[in-house]
C-alpha cells in the first residue's frame, strides 16, 4: 500500500502541470498561413501560440462575424477551473498520504478518479458548449455569410478533438502538455488503485 500511496501522490501532483502548460491547443493553418495561427487553452485563459496569433485570429474571424476570443475575465471558467484543479490535486495528495499510512482504503483512490473523471467530462461538456457558441453565434451583419447546402448558416465550431476543414482553414484540436500530464496523472491514480487492491487482496489471502 506504500507504493500505491506514492503513485497516488505523484498522479495527483501531475495535475499541477496545468498551471504551467496548456490543457488544449487549437491550430489554424491555411494556404496563406504556412505557419499556422494557434491558440493555447490554459485553465487560466487563452493565449496565442505566437505573440500576435489571437489578434490575427480575431482579425480574420471578424469577416464571418465571430466574437473575439474571450479574455480570462470574460469567462467564469477561467477563475473556477484553477480552483477545481488545485483542490483535486490537494485532495489526491491527502488521500495518497493517508493511503501510504494505511489510514484509508484503496477504494478512495478509485473514488478520486471517478470524481476527477466526472469533473473532466463536465469541463469538456462546458468547453464544447463554448466552442458551439463561439462557432455559431455569429453577428447577423457579418461581411461573409456562408450557408450549408440545406440553407442553414455554417458553423465555424472547431472540433473538440481531432481535425476539421473550416472553409480555407485546416483546424487541429488536440490536448497539449498540461492535458497529457493530467491524463497520465489520472491514469497513475488508477494504477495506484490497482496496486492498492492487489496489496489488500494479498493481505486478505494470507
Amino acid at each position, binding site marked *: 500500500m506504500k507504493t500505491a500511496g506514492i503513485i497516488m501522490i505523484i498522479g495527483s501532483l501531475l495535475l499541477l502541470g496545468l498551471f504551467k502548460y496548456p490543457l488544449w491547443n487549437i491550430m489554424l493553418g491555411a494556404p496563406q498561413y504556412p505557419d499556422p495561427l494557434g491558440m493555447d487553452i490554459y485553465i487560466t485563459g487563452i493565449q496565442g501560440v505566437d*505573440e*500576435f496569433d489571437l*489578434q*490575427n485570429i480575431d*482579425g480574420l474571424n471578424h469577416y464571418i462575424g465571430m466574437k473575439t476570443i474571450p479574455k480570462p475575465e470574460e469567462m467564469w471558467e477561467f477563475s473556477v477551473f484553477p480552483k477545481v484543479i488545485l483542490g483535486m490535486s490537494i485532495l489526491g495528495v491527502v488521500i495518497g498520504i493517508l493511503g501510504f499510512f494505511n489510514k484509508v482504503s484503496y477504494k478512495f483512490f478509485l473514488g478520486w478518479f471517478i470524481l476527477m473523471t466526472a469533473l473532466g467530462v463536465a469541463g469538456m461538456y462546458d468547453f464544447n458548449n463554448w466552442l458551439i457558441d463561439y462557432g455559431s453565434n455569429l453577428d447577423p451583419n457579418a*461581411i461573409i455569410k456562408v450557408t450549408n447546402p440545406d440553407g442553414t448558416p455554417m458553423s465555424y465550431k472547431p472540433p473538440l478533438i481531432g481535425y476539421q476543414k473550416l472553409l480555407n482553414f485546416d483546424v487541429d484540436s488536440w490536448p497539449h502538455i498540461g492535458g497529457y500530464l493530467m491524463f497520465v496523472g489520472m491514469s497513475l491514480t488508477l494504477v495506484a488503485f490497482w496496486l492498492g487492491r492487489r496489496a489488500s487482496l494479498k493481505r486478505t489471502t494470507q
Partner: protein
Amino acid sequence: MKNILKTTVALVTILVAFTSCNNSGKSNGQSGALASNVAEKVYVAPGEYDSHYAFMSGGYSGNITVYGLPSGRMFKEIPVFSQFPTNGYGYSEETKPMLETSYGFVPWDDSHHPDISQTNGELDGRWIFINGNNTPRIARISLTTFETEEIIEVPNSAGNHSSSFITENTEYVVAGTRFSVPVPQKDMPIKDYKGNFKGALSFISVDPEHGHMDIKFQILMPGFNYDLSHPGRGKSHGWFFFTTYNTEEANSLLEVNASQNDKDFIAAINWKKIEEYVNNGGGTMMPANYAHNLYDEATHMATSTMKKEVRVVNPAEVPGAIYLLPTPKSPHGCDVDPTGEYIVGNGKLSANLTVHSFTKMLDAIEKKKFDGDAYGIPILKFEDVLAGSVEQPGLGPLHTEFDGEGNAYTTFFISSEVVKWKLGTWEVLDRKPTYYSVGHLTIPGGNSRKPFGKYMFAMNKITKDRYLPVGPEMEHSAQLYDISGDKMELLLDFPTHGEPHYAAAIPAEIIMKNSRKIYRLAENEHPRKALSDADTKVVREGKNVHIYMTTIRSHFSPDNIEGVKVGDKVFFHVTNLEQDFDVPHGFAVIGANTAELLVMPGQTRTLTWEPKQVGVWPFYCTDFCSALHQEMQGYVRVSPADSNLELSWSLGD
C-alpha cells in the same frame, strides 16, 4: 552543267554543316542527359529555399537587388540612393531626408560595390554597405529589415568608386575618390590639374553596436584616379590597398593621356598608423558641408543633419604610413587573397596579371629599398614587391575573387572569360567563357578570410542575344558557375536588374533567421502615429491638415473626411495596425504629385497631398491586402478656399 549542279549541292552541304556547327556552339555544348544534370543543380523546388543570398548592386538603378543562388531568382529590390515609387521611398515624408545632400535633394545615384559586414575577417551578416558613385555617398542597409538605415555623404570626393570596402572587423568602411578635384573646391583653370588636384581617401568609422557611420579621417592623396580598393586581412590587417590610374595626372582625353605610363601604382596605406596619429590629435579639421542621414526604426523616420567639418590628413604628416607599389598598365581591381599575403593588381591594359606580396612589401619597406617618390610618398621597386605574374591569362583583366582553396578567379573583359589560376604557382587551371564582356565576379565570402567556394557568378556588361529580344535597351546578364570541382561548370544564365557592378553573397543560414516579419506596433514612436481607432483624428494647423489614419483589413479609419479646402496641404499619416506577416496596406489619393505609400505592419508613413480642385476625391488601398481589398477606400471632400466648413471625420456612420 552537271558539274555546276554537283558543286552547288556540295556547297549547300558544307554551308548546312557550318550552320549546324554554329547552332551547337550556341548551346554551349550541353544537351540531353548532361543538360538535365546541370538543371538539377540549379533547381530549387517550389517551397524550397536557395542556399545563398546574393546582393547585387543596381549600378544606374542606384539600388540593391536581392537574389537567391543557385536559382537566380530575384526576391527584392532594396531602394538605397534612388527614389522608389513602388513603396514610396524618397517620396514619403519619413524617407525623403535619406536623399538629402549638400547639393540638395538628389533622387538618384549610381551604386557600385556592396560589402557585407565582417567580424574577424568573416561575414557576420549584420549590414551591407554600398557606395553612391556620382554624388559621393555611402549607405548602410540593415540585414534584419533589408531597408536602408543610413547614408553619409563624402566631402572632397568625386566619383566615389574605390568604395565601399570594409576592414575585417568592420572598423571602417572605406571610400576613395575616382576623380581628383581641388580640395577645397575652388574656381581654377582645369589645365592646372597637375600638382593641384587631390584624391581624398575616406575612412568612415562604423559603430560596432548600431553601425552608425562617421568620417574619422580623409587622406588627401596626390591627384591620381583611385579606382578600386580592398582591405588587408589576416597578416595584412591594418593595411588598405588602392589601385590608381592616371598617375600621369592628365585632365583631358584620358583614354590616351592616362595610358602613357608603363606602370601606375597600388597605394598601400597603413590605416592603423594613421588612426593612431589621428587618435593622438593628428590631422586638421577642415571646413566642409556634407549630409548625414539616419533612419530610426522606432520612429520610422529619417533625419538629415549637415556636418560642417571633416578631419584631413596630409600623407607627409605621417611618414612611413603610405607606400606606392608600381603595377603595370592602369590597374582596375585591387584584390587581396584570404590569407592577406597576395595583392592582385588587375592591370586592365596589361598582358599579364600582377600579384604583389605583402611579406616582400614589408621587407622592402624595412630595407628602405625605394625607387624615388611621388609627392613625398615613397615608391617601392616593382621587382622587390612582386610575388609573381600570371602569364598571358587573357585580355583585359578586371577583378579577382578567391575560393579559399588557394585558387583565384579573374574576369577578363576583352576576352569575355573567367580564368581560374593557382596562387603561388601562377599557373592557369581553367577558363570558361562569359556572355559577354564580364565586369565583376562574386564568390560568396570571396572578399573575406573565409570564402564559401561552391558558386561563382559573373556579371556582364553586354547582353545582346542571351534572352528573348526586348528592343535596344535590355537588362544585363549574369552566369552562375559551380566551382566546387577542378573545372568550372556553367550552370545558369539569368538577367539582372540595372547594371550590377559588384555583388556580395552569403550563405542563407547566416542571415535568414534574423529577418524581421513585422514592426511591433507597441514600439512605434512615430510622433503622428495612431495606434487604434481612438487615436484617429484630423487636425488643422493653419494651411496644413494632418490626418491621423489607421489601416486594418479591410478599411481605413477614418474613411470620410470633410473640411479640407483648396490651397491646404494635407498630410495623410497612415499607421498600419496589422501585426501579421506580409499584410502591408497601400495608400494612394487621386492627383497626388508624389508616389503611393506602402505601409508595413506596425509602421507609419506620410503622404503629402495638395488638393487643387473643389470636389469629393477618393483614396484607396493599393496593396491587394485581403478578400475585401476593393472595399478599402474613402473620400475627402475638398471645399473652396473661403469655405467655413469645419473639419470632420468618420468611419461607418
